[in-house]
């Protein structure tokens, strides 16, 4: 239920016809959200099973810090469980969950910046970014993956979140709008700008 494995027909150096792209089709999200909203424990567990790994990847991409991401993941779901009763449109469950995750990340970043200020750190860097590439990129030694990571890191937090929600988590525009608290039109504009920046950074990386 909920996920369709879509075979991409793209000829590419990386993906072949056998590679699968996991496209979430949230046809069951509505029913699940209705049950979870009613406080059904099994449904809340199902929501967790369904979104926890994606949320972990999302918060790790936003925070660029694995341990902070683990904390953010837990905070996200605690808050999702507490507030799912306020979800007005059940079909917006993915946007709701990712929206909570995004807000939790903002709070974590703010706290980290405050701690840094408190510790006497000069020049507060609000956007906490690891200097190293992500572990998976380092492990694979994949320069292209690291270039993409650097390009994604170069985006502002909002644009990074929108780009990741669209390109990595494959959320439709209306769900992204819910997650970000933006209008669909603004999501489109911000996504376009993110893509422009991403292309420019990747081109720059390629030119080196």
């Amino acid at each position, binding site marked *: 239920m909920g996920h369709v494995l879509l075979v991409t027909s*793209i000829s590419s150096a990386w*993906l072949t016809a056998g590679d699968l792209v996991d496209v979430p089709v949230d046809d069951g999200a509505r029913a699940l959200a209705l049950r979870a909203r009613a406080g059904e424990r099994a449904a809340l567990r199902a929501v967790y099973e369904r979104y926890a790994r994606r949320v972990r990847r999302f918060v790790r991409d936003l925070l660029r810090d694995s341990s902070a991401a683990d904390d953010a993941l*837990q905070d996200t779901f*605690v808050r999702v*469980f507490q507030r799912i009763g306020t979800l007005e449109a059940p079909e917006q469950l993915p946007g709701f969950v990712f929206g909570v995750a995004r807000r939790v990340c903002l709070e974590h970043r703010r706290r980290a910046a405050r701690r840094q200020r408190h510790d006497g750190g000069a020049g507060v860097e609000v956007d906490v970014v690891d200097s190293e590439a992500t572990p*998976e990129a380092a492990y694979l030694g994949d320069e292209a*993956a690291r270039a993409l990571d650097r390009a994604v890191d170069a985006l502002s937090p909002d644009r990074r979140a929108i780009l990741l929600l669209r390109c990595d988590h494959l959320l439709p525009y209306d769900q992204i709008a819910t997650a970000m608290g933006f209008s669909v039109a603004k999501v489109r504009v911000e996504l376009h700008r993110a893509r422009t920046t991403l292309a420019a950074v990747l081109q720059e990386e390629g030119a080196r």
Partner: protein
Amino acid sequence: MSASNGERRTACAFDLDALAYGELVGLDETPAREHVAVCVRCHAVHTARLREQRLFARRAHDAVDGRALPDVDALLLRATREPLGLVARVRPFAARWSAPVVGAFALLLFVHARRERGFEPALGPSVRVHVDRAAIDESAWGWGALPVSAEECVVATATCVCTTSSSAPVACAEPATAPASKVECSSTRDAALYLAADVDAVCAADAI
């Protein structure tokens, strides 16, 4: 997602993003694909989208996290125990600021109570002594010269003797006869004299 719903579809009005991400279904998809095949610009955009999709699919594939997720039951328990929303936000703030606020309030109450009892502690290095206006011999003083400064006011014996910078020492009336209205007179010494005479006099603690 697509330019459907009866609106006139012009060339290059296709949602190439939706096409690339498999969101165009049924009747919308075929004309979009046909258009992409013949339009150079849209073909380039579509190709870029597919490339982007491959990049992120590879990234997501690499980012598969085999670690176990946090225990959902522990999170459900936290969700029921932790305060929600405004309370959660206000609690750390209250914990941090309640003591200083209560302290400041108590200090205000104390100062207010002392004022009510007729004692007005003057703060700061200079000593200010408030004596009844009528404590000064009006005929000898001349109201136009008031108030006098700290250097100008010298207290001798039980009678306040004030001098002004422009005139000879001026004798003031016995403080004990002072009626209501006040004048400011300053002295660095003998402030206790006024208090001892039980006049409506106020002086700084460091002057007593």
